[in-house]
């Protein structure tokens, strides 16, 4: 995975819980441009471990002068977002991955309907710049609990096809009204809580939308959990996974060679074969099918955990 050594040039509070960060090349060199919906993985060295979280890029995809992300502080998470909020300052050096995109627009669509819940607004901020430049028809629906929490408000243009639904003000999002009657060839994209993603998928299915016109991204950081241990086949070593560490992070800290990309259970890159499993894999990814989960023969180490006596991985 190619990496970029950048500098933090701006930090701005967008809401009490969300900060915007801007990264630039220290010498001002242009960065690779990207496509709407792309993310970068940010490295956060913390003692003897390097935490890596992926964040959607919110800046103009065609602008290589810098990358911007928005980070919501999750106090119940493993500490990645807290690190960004409390330890990162303007002027710091920061290492990020090159942009990758797991939530790209289907550019064959005649119209794009973008539905965001809360911090799920982030991938759409770059997408709507791309759609604007390409002059593609779209509408954006942004739902948040309160205006105070709606960090995206300050980054959204004031336009007729951008709709904000604040539930505290009684303006709840009506998915039926949004999806019904859209022209043939419309694609819908949802980013936000699982409940919103499944509600949009259910509503689209009821209205006869083809599955391939329904896209979503549930970008979640790996959940913390109880500590456990795994055995690595090649060396026979046992690796301890701490409560606030993902299996992938623990393997990396133990210098076990393993490929990754999104670190959010969405891309399939870190898929690992299970040799022995005496217990239960806690699958937290969006990659494996129900049947694959039940088999317990594969695991996505970036998100999933284990509870039981013994788990041996083909690494």
């Amino acid at each position, binding site marked *: 995975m190619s990496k970029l050594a950048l500098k933090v040039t701006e930090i701005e509070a967008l809401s009490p819980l969300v900060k915007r960060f801007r990264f630039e090349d220290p010498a001002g060199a242009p960065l690779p441009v990207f496509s709407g919906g792309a993310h970068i993985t940010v490295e956060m060295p913390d003692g003897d471990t390097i935490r890596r979280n992926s964040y959607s890029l919110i800046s103009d995809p065609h602008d290589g002068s810098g990358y911007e992300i928005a980070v919501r502080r999750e106090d119940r998470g493993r500490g990645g977002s807290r690190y960004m909020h409390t330890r990162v300052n303007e002027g710091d050096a920061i290492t990020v991955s090159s942009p990758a995109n797991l939530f790209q627009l289907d550019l064959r669509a005649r119209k794009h309907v973008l539905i965001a819940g809360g911090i799920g607004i982030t991938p759409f901020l770059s997408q709507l710049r791309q759609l604007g430049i390409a002059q593609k028809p779209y509408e954006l629906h942004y739902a948040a609990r309160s205006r105070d929490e709606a960090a995206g408000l300050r980054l959204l243009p004031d336009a007729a096809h951008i709709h904000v639904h604040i539930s505290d003000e009684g303006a709840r999002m009506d998915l039926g009204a949004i999806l019904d009657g859209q022209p*043939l060839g419309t*694609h819908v994209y949802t980013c936000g809580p699982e409940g919103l993603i499944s509600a949009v998928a259910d509503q689209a299915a009821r209205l006869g939308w083809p599955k391939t016109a329904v896209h979503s991204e549930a970008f979640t950081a790996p959940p913390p959990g109880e500590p456990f241990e795994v055995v690595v086949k090649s060396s026979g070593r046992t690796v301890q996974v701490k409560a606030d560490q993902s299996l992938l992070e623990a393997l990396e800290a133990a210098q076990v060679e393993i490929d990754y990309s999104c670190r959010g259970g969405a891309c399939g890159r870190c898929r690992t074969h299970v040799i022995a499993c005496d217990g239960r894999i806690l699958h937290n990814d969006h990659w494996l099918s129900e049947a694959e989960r039940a088999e317990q023969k594969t695991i996505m180490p970036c998100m999933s955990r284990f509870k039981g006596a013994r788990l041996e991985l083909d690494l």
Partner: protein
Amino acid sequence: MPNTKFSPSIDSRPTYAGLVSQGAAPGIMVADAAGADALVDLASADSSVMDRAHVLLVGAAADTVSRIEALHPKALHGAPDLEAATPLVKRLLSAARMGTTLYLAGSEGLMGHVAALATAEGLPLEAIQMEHRGTVARRMQCVHCKGITEDVTTDPFTCSHCGLTLFVRDHFSRRLGAFQGVCVDAETPGVVPDAQEIRA
């Protein structure tokens, strides 16, 4: 004559699963004379499929038109050939809403062309139902001059635009809705294999 079974080939070669009724949901149906039989079979399995269906018959004779009329589709349109049908197809697609099913039946040329128009409008291929009936003639694109030759029945054949002798490949372009024809004697000019009839 049921849905044609084609011999197994490369993945690029389309196969057609046959039409299955989505009930009284809105529908756009495009068929040629042979494909009209598939619409008759579809409606005999579930007559409600015609309740909200716009049917467009391409190059169909009067008796075919009256057989479809008897199924009472919501609207019945006609066009003498694919070229004349194209603006009508585009108009039907642009007026349609999500949840509309596209049913195509007949030759590969008709289905490929209409499916390409629909995917260019953003409709996923998986949302298009197709059933092959009638001729196995192919709609071919010359990969050299990009001209389209309709109703190709032999391999090799002569490009109707640039005159090259083209080998009929199973490689299909979903964007163009056409099979690809490649110069058969580029390496050995003038050495052309005997023409064979294209089979399923």
